[in-house]
């Protein structure tokens, strides 16, 4: 990708992100009540989107040589670490280091 293409890609991401932030204020100005269906989607969608993002992270690993095995092991590690210490940052840092060791030493 050239620098110009990178800038256009980033601009597209900015536009998409800002659309999600500004749209409600443009559609429902001053005291207009959003429909019940939209408000309800707002309560259930966030949970599903996180699930989608987890799968997004694994999308290429599934089709690789190890079929996502190192990723599954590392996710198991994050799960146990998180259940044990309940420290978000520790779970993220510990899981990442664990995965890096896995793919650099074991699954090369």
């Amino acid at each position, binding site marked *: 990708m050239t620098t110009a293409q990178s800038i256009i*890609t980033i601009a597209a991401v900015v536009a998409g992100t800002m659309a999600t932030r500004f749209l409600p204020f443009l559609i429902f100005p001053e005291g207009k009540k959003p429909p019940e269906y939209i*408000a309800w989607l707002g309560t259930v969608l966030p949970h599903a989107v996180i*699930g989608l993002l987890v799968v997004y992270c694994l999308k290429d690993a599934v089709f690789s040589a190890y079929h996502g095995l190192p990723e599954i092991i590392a996710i198991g590690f994050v799960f146990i670490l998180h259940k044990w210490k309940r420290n978000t940052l520790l779970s993220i840092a510990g899981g990442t280091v664990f995965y890096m060791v896995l793919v650099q030493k074991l699954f090369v």
Partner: protein
Amino acid sequence: MKRKAFQAALPHTVPIAVGFLFLGMSYGFLMRSKGFSVFYPMLMSLFIFAGSMEFVTVNLLLSAFQPAYAFFLALMVNARHLFYGISMLGRYRNVGWKKFYLIYGMCDESFTVNCSVTPPDDVDKGWFMFFVTLLNQAYWVTGATLGGFLGYVIRFDTKGIEFVMTALFVVMFLGQWEESADHRSALTGLGCSFLCLAVFGSSRFIIPAMALIILCFTFSRKKEDRRGEV
């Protein structure tokens, strides 16, 4: 007035500072390890200012040039902001020019503080929310920039560092799982996504997955409504 609002806002953002500096640094470091100059994490954290999407954008920049796909992916990944916005329609009213920045900087954490904390009576509500948002963004941009610079100084084998994004989402998933008793929404997200990944392949599963998720929700709601009438 501003000073008072700043002093009221600061303590609410301290826990966020720790998280944002750490995650921002990992993001900046990740970008540097993929060969981008420090200006990328700095400007992307400033202009996009949506953590998960910035991590996703690293992948986009490393693959083929598809701006329309990037736009729609940003819409999907950030769709939750639509619902934050709907919840904040009332609170962001009557704050003048600051409203523009409050909407622009409405990340998960600023939303959480601004929708759950009511400042003391003698503190201006608009300035309070403004400083919460501004401080949070300052932490994130500082972290991302620092991480980018660290990438020049510290050298080690960074293979596998992109797992920081997976770990982040897994921890968020676990947190949400424990918070709510109803896991159908989370399972719908996982199930639909895996199904679409298997059917459509890794490069084009996101949009069908999102559509399927919304379809499943809409269908189950209709069914529940009908049950409610009987």
